[in-house]
């Protein structure tokens, strides 16, 4: 999986982080593929993403 960029998604209150949104790239028709990873220790994907963050191989933007 190639990650173009990563940022947080927030709840409707605008303050609570709910997901990490990964941009996985844009296809020939201009449509972009995304992955939303819930911020939860019960998510294996979240655990893996945070491992990459702690290893310094991935940076998550706060917002656009």
């Amino acid at each position, binding site marked *: 999986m190639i990650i173009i960029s990563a940022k947080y*998604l927030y709840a409707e209150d605008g303050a609570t982080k709910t997901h990490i949104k990964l941009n996985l790239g844009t296809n020939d028709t201009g449509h972009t593929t995304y992955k939303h990873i*819930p911020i*939860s220790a019960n998510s*294996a994907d979240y655990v893996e993403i945070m491992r990459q963050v702690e290893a310094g191989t991935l940076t998550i933007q706060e917002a656009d």
Partner: protein
Amino acid sequence: MALSKILPASQEQYAGARNLIINGAMQVAQRGTSSTSVTAGYYTVDRFNFSPIATDELAVTHSQSTTVPSGQGFANSWKLEVTTAETALAADELCILRQQIEGQNLQHLAYGTSSAKSLTLSFWVRSSLIGKYSCLFYNLDATRTNLQSFTINTADTWEYKTITIDGDTDSGAGFDNDNGGSLQVAWIFAAGTDWTGTPHTGWGAHTNTDDYAFSDQVNFIAQTGTFYITGVQLEVGDTATPFEHRSYADELRRCERYCYRPFVSSSGDEDAELGWPRFYSSVYGTGGTVHIEYPVTMRTNPTLTYTQANGTVDLDVSSYIKATLRDTNDTAFFVYNFQADAEL
């Protein structure tokens, strides 16, 4: 009127829904039927995780295969084909196939009490490499393991294997009553010296350096070859009963608790079989919302993967019962190539 027969208590284990393994016949493969990935994850048959760890030469194809043991009623197996060998197995390298089971589905085993029940694992296996393979039972909640083995006696020939383990009566061995992964069953293809040592016998506290694999097991990935497995069943008791064949629909529903992929089209274009496999937004305030309901309650709030046309989702209020994707700026967008993943 014919009288019904009541199964005697001694044969209770023959009743339905006795297999703790999901997709043991390798019927369901929502993510795809073939992959060459050498990164740990779920790629082909549902619920089975293929994990090569730290390998640096290995090239493989893992797939849902139609090669099966004759006359057993199976249509599929999981196949691992080594196409480029890991010629020098470093100490930290490991290669396994595994499935994890939720703790709330294991409470009846009474682990951690004097009534802890024994378990029997059975499966059909075929390998091009004869010899000893490790099979690990891992209590992830208690960090306790029970390392067992099986032997391939004849190359490229289906063999039926059974392994019975005692229940774990250690007071700390209880499984958490929740939706987390509590028991892992793993088949070990290769293990470097960081993963082998002097394993304890039966259940005991786990250390990776001693208890993950037997030091005298084969190194399956050291040469090209093929390994197949199907008919995986884990059941209460000390006897392997005939495989519990389930319908495709039944097995699919069980798998969808962990992965939901509502259609196979990855382009979203019109398809003769699927029509237009897209989810269109409905207007919501100044933007639009796409709702995708899951066929079963998912294990947890899943990771969502999708491709979007027209706009950008900036609010995700999804849960474990449905995906709700909002784009607060665009009223008309659609998503396709959707997948919800809540695997262990």
